[in-house]
């Protein structure tokens, strides 16, 4: 556990309450921001650079992962000056393949772990899962919290588990998936966010992508505000990763608006913010080409992976 994490553990039963209607109103207000012209191009490129290009399916194969990694490095070669995505996110068994395929591109490999997506496994299994992913070369680990334990009110268990996984990560950065779609209320999202951050999360992440609803702007706003409060309480920055359900460029820009107006510019980069998405990149690319050419685009002109 890093030394900057506070030594006193707060009572998580006392986390701040959230007014859901107020959060919805605030989120809606971000969506009224109009992003045009050069601001749009800059925003879209920034969004591309924040993507964790993801494949998390039972049918994933080595070839599928290699294709995805090529796409990660060559988003759209017809367009000069594009960034690459931030990371490729795969299951632990495919980390080694991804690592090799990405080579020296600078694109990181993120691995889900801890019996993703349900997390319903004994703690030793989860820790082994984590250590395996890291040993295979994962730069980042995306763990899931034990939602069942959370609902039982065993916040200390959830905390201890995250802290243990964090220790197992070693140098790898830890993203903690709250699976907000299973938490029920925004109050619970806030509580789970605090548990994760206090236990040592480098990122907090909304969803596995396997449960609906996945990322929404209100949920993400509550988590960003938790990050903001944690920053002022501890001096420690934590990253944010909304995942699942963000597949179009316009909502992605609204997430960036929300990020900028909630946490400011220090978080406006892929060290502190990621989009977990499989289809977002192509829609962003289509919008960028449209800005360049003035013509609305067709998906036929953009490679799937």
């Amino acid at each position: 556990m890093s030394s900057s994490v506070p030594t006193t553990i707060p009572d998580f039963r006392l986390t701040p309450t959230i007014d859901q209607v107020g959060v919805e109103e605030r989120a809606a207000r971000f969506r009224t921001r109009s992003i045009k012209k050069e601001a749009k191009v800059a925003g879209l490129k920034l969004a591309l650079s924040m993507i964790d290009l993801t494949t998390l399916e039972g049918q994933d194969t080595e070839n599928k992962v290699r294709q995805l990694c090529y796409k990660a490095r060559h988003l759209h070669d017809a367009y000069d000056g594009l960034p690459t995505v931030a990371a490729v996110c795969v299951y632990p068994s495919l980390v080694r393949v991804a690592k090799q395929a990405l080579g020296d591109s600078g694109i990181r490999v993120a691995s889900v772990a801890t019996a993703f997506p349900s997390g319903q496994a004994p703690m030793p299994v989860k820790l082994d899962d984590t250590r395996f992913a890291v040993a295979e070369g994962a730069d980042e680990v995306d763990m899931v919290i034990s939602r069942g334990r959370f609902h039982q009110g065993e916040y200390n268990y959830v905390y201890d588990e995250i802290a243990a996984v964090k220790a197992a990560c070693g140098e790898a950065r830890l993203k903690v998936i709250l699976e907000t779609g299973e938490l029920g209320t925004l109050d619970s999202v806030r509580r789970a966010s605090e548990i994760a951050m206090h236990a040592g999360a480098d990122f907090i992440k909304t969803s596995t992508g396997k449960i609906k609803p996945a990322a929404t702007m209100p949920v993400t706003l509550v988590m960003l505000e938790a990050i903001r409060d944690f920053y002022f309480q501890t001096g420690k920055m934590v990253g944010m990763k909304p995942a699942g359900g963000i597949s179009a460029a316009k909502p992605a820009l609204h997430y960036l608006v929300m990020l900028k107006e909630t946490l400011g510019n220090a978080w406006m980069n892929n060290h502190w913010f990621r989009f977990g998405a499989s289809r977002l990149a192509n829609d962003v690319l289509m919008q960028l080409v449209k800005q360049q050419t003035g013509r609305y685009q067709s998906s036929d002109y953009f490679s799937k992976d």
Partner: protein
Amino acid sequence: MSRIPVLKTYKIYIGGKFPRTESGRFYQPEDAKGNSLGNLCRSSRKDLRNAVVAARAAFPGWSSRPAFNRGQILYRIAEVLEGRTDQFVAELVAQGSTAKAATKEVELSVDRLVYYAGWCDKYQQVFSAVNPVASNHFNFSIYEPMGVVAIVAPEESSLVGLISTLAPALAGGNVVVLLASQSKPLCSITLAEVLQTSDVPGGVVNVLTGFDSELLPHFAGHMDINAVIYGRQGADQIEALQRGAAENVKRVSLLGDRNWLEAEAHDPYLILNTQEVKTTWHPIEKVGGSASGY
């Protein structure tokens, strides 16, 4: 030798006590034959000031009583008043009524109190509202008392007119400073004695006697009176009252044209006359696809 009767001294009623006017002055209203009705207090503006202070102090307690309890107290006033029927009839007769008319007026006064006693815990149900706003909020409007209400009681029908203007204000949780009929003030002081023995807390009703020409400008201009009910018909007084009321945006209602002797001269809208509408909003959490539903 016949017994010498003990005459009653008419005082004023402030904060649950019966002081004389601080000014020491008196006046002698007369009956139709020119006989004096007694030495009545000619209240001063300082008496008015004291009455408003007493009323304001009584407002939080009275307005926050359960409506049911206010209803019981109004009913209690009716009971005690009924028991004093003979005294009120005698006073009305002394002020010029026939015995028959006086009896009818007292009975009507009792019935009117019973009528408003029943409204205390019902007008809110009838007139408040849940408003179906288009956003995710629960929104409701309720009635609340205005506060200190000054009543310039009708000059004629000096008992039932007084009850008819007083009872709706009390039923709605207001506190009252009342100026009695100038020419027929006897019943107002006797009513104060009824109030004092009817579980009405001190200060909730305060009764002054005296000259409206002297006191009305102070009723109009007093910054801690929230509303005035004017039960008389002087056009000049109305204009002066309305003009003065602007000092603190008082609400003025004019009831001088009512015939309080009619059996139907009562309705719950007279309660609303001294009520404010308060509207409250609160968000409704919308989780799991639930709609507001209101």
